[in-house]
C-alpha cells in the first residue's frame, strides 16, 4: 500500500511524505509522537492524503484506518493471552471466518508457539510481549505497521528475532514498516529511508545511507550520528583515509586493515 501526504498541514507547517510498500522507514526527532495520528490516518489534516491512488475523505477514512496499525504495548483488561487476542478481534469488529486459525497464523508469523495462548500476560518475557503485540496487530492484516522503539531493552538474540520478523513482513508480506526511534545506530542499521523531524517540521527525507552521511548538517541540527558513521567520518576528515562507510563493525575492521 502506498500512502502519499501531499501538502498536509502539521503543526502549522506544510508536510509532504510518501510511504511505499516493502520498505522500512525511520522517523527521528523531538515530539514526533504528535505526527503519529496523522501518519496512522487517525487524524485528517488539511491537504491531500492519497492511499493507492484513492483520495482520503471523511467518508472513506475508516476503511483505510484499519490498514495502518500503530503497534503499542498490550493494553487489555484481560490477562489470558487467548482472551486478549479475541478481545482485539471483537473491539475492532474484525470479520474473520475462522478466528482461531487466524490467531494461530498470526502467532506463527511472529515466531511464537500456539501454547502461549494458555499463558497469562505476566508470565511472558519482554521479547515475547513485543512479539505478541505484533501478532495481535497482525490480526487486522494491516498494510502499514508503525512501531516505536522496537528494539529497546532487548538483548542481542531478541533484537535479532524482531529484525528478522520486520524483514519478513517487509519482504514476504510487502508491508510498510515505520520505525520511530531516537537510536541513530538502530535506524542506520535497519531502515531503508529516513525522515528527520525538527521543530515540528520535516527537515529532510531520503535514503538512510545517504542522509546519515550528512554528518555536519545533522550535527548542526542536533541529531545523533550513528557511532560507526561518526568514526569513519572522523578518520576521513582528520587523516584523509579512504575507508568506506559500513553498517557492521566487522566490515569496517577489514577496511581499516587495508588502509593502514
Amino acid at each position, binding site marked *: 500500500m502506498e500512502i502519499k501526504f501531499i501538502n498536509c498541514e502539521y503543526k502549522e507547517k506544510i508536510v509532504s511524505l510518501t510511504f511505499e510498500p516493502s520498505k522500512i522507514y525511520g522517523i527521528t526527532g523531538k515530539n514526533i509522537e504528535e505526527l503519529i495520528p496523522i501518519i496512522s490516518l487517525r487524524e485528517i489534516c488539511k491537504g491531500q492524503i492519497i492511499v493507492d491512488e484513492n483520495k482520503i475523505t471523511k467518508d472513506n477514512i475508516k476503511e483505510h484506518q484499519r490498514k495502518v496499525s500503530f503497534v503499542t504495548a498490550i493494553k487489555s483488561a484481560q490477562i489470558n493471552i487467548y482472551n486478549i487476542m479475541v478481545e482485539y478481534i471483537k473491539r475492532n469488529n474484525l470479520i474473520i471466518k475462522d478466528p482461531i486459525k487466524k490467531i494461530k497464523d498470526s502467532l506463527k508469523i511472529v515466531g511464537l508457539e500456539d501454547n502461549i495462548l494458555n499463558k497469562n500476560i505476566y508470565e511472558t*518475557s*519482554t*521479547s515475547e510481549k513485543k512479539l505478541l503485540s505484533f501478532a495481535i496487530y497482525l490480526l487486522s492484516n494491516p498494510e502499514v505497521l508503525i512501531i516505536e522503539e522496537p528494539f*529497546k*531493552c*532487548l*538483548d*542481542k*538474540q*531478541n*533484537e535479532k528475532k524482531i529484525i528478522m520478523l520486520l524483514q519478513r513482513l517487509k519482504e514476504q508480506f510487502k508491508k510498510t514498516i515505520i520505525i520511530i526511534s*531516537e*537510536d541513530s*545506530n538502530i535506524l542506520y542499521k535497519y531502515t531503508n529511508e529516513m525522515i528527520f523531524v525538527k521543530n515540528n517540521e520535516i527537515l529532510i527525507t531520503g535514503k538512510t545511507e545517504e542522509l546519515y552521511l550528512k554528518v555536519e548538517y545533522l550535527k548542526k541540527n542536533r541529531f*545523533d550520528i550513528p*557511532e*560507526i558513521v*561518526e*568514526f569513519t567520518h*572522523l*578518520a576521513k576528515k*582528520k*587523516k584523509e*583515509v579512504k575507508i568506506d562507510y559500513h553498517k557492521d*563493525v*566487522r566490515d*569496517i*575492521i577489514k577496511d*581499516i*586493515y587495508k588502509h*593502514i
Partner: protein
Amino acid sequence: MNKNCIEILGLNYLNIFNNFSIAIENEKFITVSGSNNCGKTTLIRIIDGQVPINNTITLYGRPYESYKVTDISSIIQTIIPLEITAFQNTLEDEMLYQMNETASKSEKNKLIKTIAKQFKITKLLTKTVDNLKNKEKIYFQIALALIKNPKIIVIDDLSPYFNKQELIMITEMLKEYNQNNKTTIIMVTSLLDCNLYSDYSYILDQGKIVLEGNPKEVLERDNILNKAGLNLPFMIDLSVKLKDYDLIKNVELDMDRLVDILWK
C-alpha cells in the same frame, strides 16, 4: 566496619537462582547487566527485601531477618521506574516531608534546590506526581531517593524510559553523588555504556554471574558478552576487534585518540 554492605551466599530462588552468591562492596558504584530474563530485576527485589529469603542475605554483617522492614527501607532506597505512590503533596512538600528531621528548613530547601536542579525538576516542584510525564516521574523518584540520604541506593533498569544520552547523563550524576556522599549505588542497566562509569561490574546470564570486575576489563571479554546476548558499546567492540587484528594494543574509549593511534 564491614567491607561489604550486602552479601548473598548460596541463594536458591525458584528456577532463577541456584546457589547464587554476590558480595556488594561498601561505598562503591556497582552495575549489574545481563540479557532478558537473566534475573536482574529479581535480584533487585531480593536485595530490597521485597522477596523474603532466609539465612542467605546479610546487610552490614547482620542477617536481613534480624532487621525490621522499616530499618531496611531506611538503609536501602530502591527505585523501580514508575512504581511510585500518587500522593497529593507537591513534589517540593513531599521532598521536605521525606528529609531528615534534624536538618534546618534553610538547609532542607537548599538541598532540594540542588537536587531538583541536578535532575531537571526545578520547574516541576509545585506540581503533584499525577501531573508528571513518565520521564519526570523517574527523575523525581531518583531525587526523592537521594534526598532521604540512604546508605544504599538500588536502581532497576531505566533503559526502557530514556535514550542513550539521557541514561549516560543520569549515570554520571549518580556517579558524582556516589563519590560525594559515599553512598553505595547498585544500578541495573541493559546499556553497557553505563557500566564504564561504575567501580565494579557484574554480568549475569541465566541466573549466574558470568563476569565481574573492573568494568573496562569486563567489557573487553566480548566472547562471553556475546554469548550472554549483550550488545557491546561501539568503541569497545571496535577496539577489541582491532586488538584481535593486532592493530592496537589497548582498548580505546576515545574516538579521536583511536583515530590518532591507527593513523599516526
